[in-house]
């Protein structure tokens, strides 16, 4: 009886997974085997390994890596300090609120801030550095991306730190461990899962960023996402667009495998 109800409850879940996860991925793989004339081909995969797409893939990975590392470097201390504050839930909320604002709106705001006559340049002028070109540079692209992704990095790390049993820290003190040792041997290993899920939710979407590459980087940064967008909307070469998507999916599975599936030993 119990087993039957459980199967019954599984139906919506399995239906969802088939309709919205398995079927789209299968379709993407299916389309990747057709050229622009609708003939079956494996040529798209060959084309992916030409210098243009390889370079694009490498640059996508490089920027995604930069965005993730910088987010992590900023998020870990922030999350740590948050757990020490008095009204930590309130502070956490304040950090998360900007992620409710539409992405396009935030991008447009940054065009204003980083512009030649924007607030950032006025500030640089006042402190005597003088105006610099900020918009349409690698710096602005990485900065805005980090700004957008950082709440997703802070949240899992904060949760992990918050769930840390304080008596463990007391114990390390009693046993004479230095602060650094405590961090390295106790805090870090126990919050590693938070860090891993943070990396997943930041690295994977930033691999296929495409809107910011045009709005903030003025197409100076070309990611695989840009190419997919162009192939689907302009060229109507769905085959090549799908092929790139297949490689992105493979990359995502690899990252999940590297950061998620491996369980820590006792």
């Amino acid at each position, binding site marked *: 009886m119990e087993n039957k109800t459980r199967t019954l409850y599984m139906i919506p879940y399995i239906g969802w997974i088939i309709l919205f996860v398995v079927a789209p991925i299968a379709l993407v793989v299916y389309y990747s085997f057709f050229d622009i004339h609708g003939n079956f081909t494996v040529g798209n995969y060959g084309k992916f390994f030409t210098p*243009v797409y390889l370079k694009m893939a490498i640059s996508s990975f490089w920027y995604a890596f930069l965005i993730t590392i910088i987010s992590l470097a900023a998020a870990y201390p922030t999350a740590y300090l948050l757990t020490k504050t008095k009204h930590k839930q309130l502070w956490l909320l304040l950090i998360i609120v900007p992620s409710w604002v539409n992405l396009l709106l935030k991008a447009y705001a940054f065009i204003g801030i980083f512009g030649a006559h924007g607030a950032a340049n006025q500030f640089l002028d006042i402190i005597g550095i003088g105006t610099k070109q900020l918009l349409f540079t690698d710096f602005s692209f990485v900065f805005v991306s980090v700004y957008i992704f950082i709440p997703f990095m802070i949240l899992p790390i904060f949760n992990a730190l918050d769930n840390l049993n304080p008596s463990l820290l007391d114990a390390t003190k009693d046993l004479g461990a230095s602060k650094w040792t405590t961090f390295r041997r106790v805090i870090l290993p126990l919050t590693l899962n938070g860090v891993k899920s943070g990396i997943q939710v930041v690295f994977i979407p930033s691999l296929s960023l495409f809107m910011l590459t*045009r709005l903030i980087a*003025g*197409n*100076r940064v*070309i990611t695989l996402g840009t190419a997919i967008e162009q192939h689907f909307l302009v*060229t109507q070469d769905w085959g090549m667009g799908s092929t790139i998507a297949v490689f992105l999916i493979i990359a995502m599975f690899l990252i999940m495998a590297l950061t998620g599936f491996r369980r820590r030993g006792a």
Partner: protein
Amino acid sequence: MKKLMQAFIAVLLLSAVLLTAINRLNATEGYSGENTLTVFNWGDYIDMELVEQFEEETGITVIYETFDSNEAMLTKIQQGGTTYDIAVPSEYMVQKMMEEDLLVELDHSKIPNMKYLDERFMDLSYDPGNKYSLPYFWGTVGIVYNTKLLEGKEFSSWNDLWDPALENDILLVDGAREVIGMGLNSLGYSLNDTNRDHLQEAYEKLTKLTPNIKAIVGDENKLLMQNEEAAIAVVWSGDAADMMWENENLDYVVPEEGSNLWFDTFVIPKTAKNIEGAHQFINFFLDPEINALNTEYVSYSTPNKEALKYMPEDMVEDERFYPSPELTERLEVYENLGREHLAYYNDLFLEFKMYRK
């Protein structure tokens, strides 16, 4: 549990109320019967006073809706939820809509005013014989530049953009045909060239432009030029007119080698219910005097030869928007090159964007 059920029922009831409200709203908005005409146009692209005059003269009530991109318009017409009687797609979209069988053939006998249209702009490759579309406004692709920032530098040729003094000054529009076309034009080739050697040559020439390019952007270029974020941009003349309206330091030029010629056109989509009224509407706006007033309001270039006589001289003689006959000769409409050539254009464009690193 009881509370949960109550909450659940409340949500259901609320959804039902909202659903009926939405249906009501949609019904009134989309209604298009005997005496109404639903016009689907770009935002701020018609003089509403003239639309009122049309309503008074014909007794037809006009329902006016706007879109902001050809693709968005296409999607709404494909869905068929609203009975649009008139739409205003650009010429490449006309071709696409023809292919997808979304247009009603025009009855030329009901549009006597079409004789006023300049024959240079009729019977072009996108719609031979103007069976489905009539031009509403036309324009070019050219260079808009800030005279204040550039201290009086003049432009006349595409090749002027390659000047090393213009380092990091230029905004390009994010479109493969516009950018590759610019490269082809600067070399004296046709915009519709499909010769691979010529295209390769254009690509190599474009890579030399790289140091001068500040960014490759979309519609943001209006905002960026108005705020003097960059000194030069390659844009459609319509966007240029908008920018110049906002910032008086801006000027526009159509390069002498030639450029693209684009159209926004009147069509009657298959969704139309009031086909008679739609013809009346098109005919009304092709009337020379009406067309002149409308053109003054919109400030794009009109294809109506007769209307030019009713317009202020400084507007008609403005060579930036009404180029000389010799230059107009060198303007070309984008032909549908077919997927394969288009894919090649896009591959080159993607490579060009990649080259900038």
